[in-house]
């Protein structure tokens, strides 16, 4: 288990995510806003590339390419002196952490990756065993927020008292490297605890809480009906639990729920009352951030205006 007191607040490389950038850029700007307000020492580095996750989990990329791309990003992180890779996306988190473990433990793959670097004239990317530590150099932004829950409580300007909020913890955060989760991977409470610090009422348990979002990488695209059935199952359960706000920590889940909720309503003839946002957007809002200029809600599909009006924000 990861201990909350060991979560760093210095030298964090805020790892850019392709799906955040293309779909919910407000997640990045809101995270930066909150990190700035909390005085966290972080850096965004444009030299960092994507983790390959989308290609890796659609079976297009093989393990060697994924490991080599990860090794390059580790070199970027070390070179700029911000070696604590802090992800906005749960898949970036899992891919990087696993690649680090592989590079440290599999000499053959590490040698192969390094020989690729040398052949391509990229000697400064060479990865030596132990250059990064899979347990102490990899974080999800939500862990950083959790470690600052007390500060968030002090900093909050708006109180979401009474807002019934439920968390969807992302599978690739707590089911891949399940021994390295803050808390119990059978019942992760990171988002709930942060939401409570913002004054919301966390609905800590609902049926199918640990069910996946349904995106399933290729499944949304190639088996859409099954994919949406999974998503619908969870939305149904949230509706029964009277949830108004669903909080996310991964752009893939966020797409699945926010973008496809209206599609499910149309295709399955149902109606839902909840709205969606990333936990960093929620924390930023509670600190008084602008819903459009910081949180970027204009890119969301399920309109948030009703929720913002009720909270007295607009």
């Amino acid at each position, binding site marked *: 288990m990861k201990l909350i007191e060991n979560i760093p607040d210095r030298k964090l490389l805020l790892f*850019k995510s*392709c799906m955040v*950038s*293309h779909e919910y*850029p407000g997640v*990045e*700007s809101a995270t930066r806003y909150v990190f700035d307000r909390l005085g966290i020492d972080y850096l965004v580095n444009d*030299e*960092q*590339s*994507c983790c*390959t*996750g*989308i*290609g890796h989990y*659609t*079976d*297009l990329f*093989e*393990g*060697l*390419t994924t490991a*080599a*791309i990860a090794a*390059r990003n580790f070199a970027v992180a070390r070179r700029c002196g911000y070696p604590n890779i802090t992800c906005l996306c749960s898949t970036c988190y899992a891919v990087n952490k696993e690649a680090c473990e592989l590079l440290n*433990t*599999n000499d*053959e793959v590490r040698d192969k990756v390094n020989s*690729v*670097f040398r*052949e*391509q*004239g*990229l000697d400064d*990317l060479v990865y030596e065993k132990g250059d990064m530590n899979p347990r102490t150099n990899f974080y999800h932004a939500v862990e950083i927020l959790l470690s600052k829950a007390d500060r968030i409580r002090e900093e909050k300007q708006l109180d979401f008292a009474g807002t019934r909020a439920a968390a969807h913890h992302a*599978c690739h955060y*707590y*089911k891949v490297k399940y021994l390295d989760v803050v808390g119990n991977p059978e019942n992760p409470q990171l988002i709930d605890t942060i939401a409570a610090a913002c004054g919301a009422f966390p609905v800590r348990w609902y049926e199918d809480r*640990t069910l*996946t979002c*349904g995106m*399933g990488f*290729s*499944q949304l*695209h*190639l088996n*859409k009906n*099954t994919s949406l*059935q*999974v998503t619908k*199952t969870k939305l149904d359960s949230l509706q029964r639990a009277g949830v108004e706000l669903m909080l996310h920590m991964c752009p893939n889940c966020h797409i699945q729920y926010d*973008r*496809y909720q*209206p599609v499910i309503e149309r295709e399955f003839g149902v109606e839902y009352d909840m709205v969606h946002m990333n936990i960093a957007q929620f924390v930023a809002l509670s600190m008084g951030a602008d819903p*459009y*200029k*910081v949180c970027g809600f*204009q*890119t969301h*599909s399920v309109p948030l205006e009703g929720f913002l009006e009720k909270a007295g924000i607009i």
Partner: protein
Amino acid sequence: MMPLMPHVNGYDTPECKTLAETAKKSIRTPTSLGLDRCIQCGACTASCPAARFTDYNPRQLVKKVQENDRSVLESEMIWACFYCYSCNLRCPRNNSPVTIVQVLRQMAINEGIGLERLEYFMEIGEVLAENGASKVPGPGVRNMEKDLGEHWIGFKRNLESIRAELGLGPKDVRNTNGEVRAILEGTGYFEREKWIKGKLQEKRLHEFLNVRCEKNEDKSGEFGFETDREYPGQEAFIV
């Protein structure tokens, strides 16, 4: 027969005598993989979203791998997994059906199975090489446009100005100095892409010719390659 084109995924699918050995040696699975320790308890299947909504069954799949039943590679079943890792979390024996499925899919790919699925996502490779960032591939964008309609298309059109308003760079293009492309070249990823495309073309030509042969059974002179112009080719990608 050894394939002419390297598959590049040799570390994902090390050649071994049995499926189980390949799965254990693959870099897709954890080194501690408890495949031999599986007690067929079914906790994986009970946790599995794919099992809940389809005929897929990870417990059974693990059994087939243990029995070295290579027919699993041809089974549609292996393509139903969500890669959600619920089975990975829940298995009491440290087995990991999800990562075994990843190995099986790579093995199936090597036999030319499932390539149409890869084609759907193929654009990601070139986009990553060029921009250092991934994106939803062209066919995915078209499907999302159909599903999500005007609002989504409209915001996509304004993405640059929205990003600027949020204090972010106008486009998600990373400054990788061509290093990502060099890496994809060095690992052989582009060879793999070429191999997949070639295989698909071969397959389609075959199917096409078969259809023509059936249609034109009584005619003569219609079998040649001149009919190639009717081959629709691969769907164009929208970038």
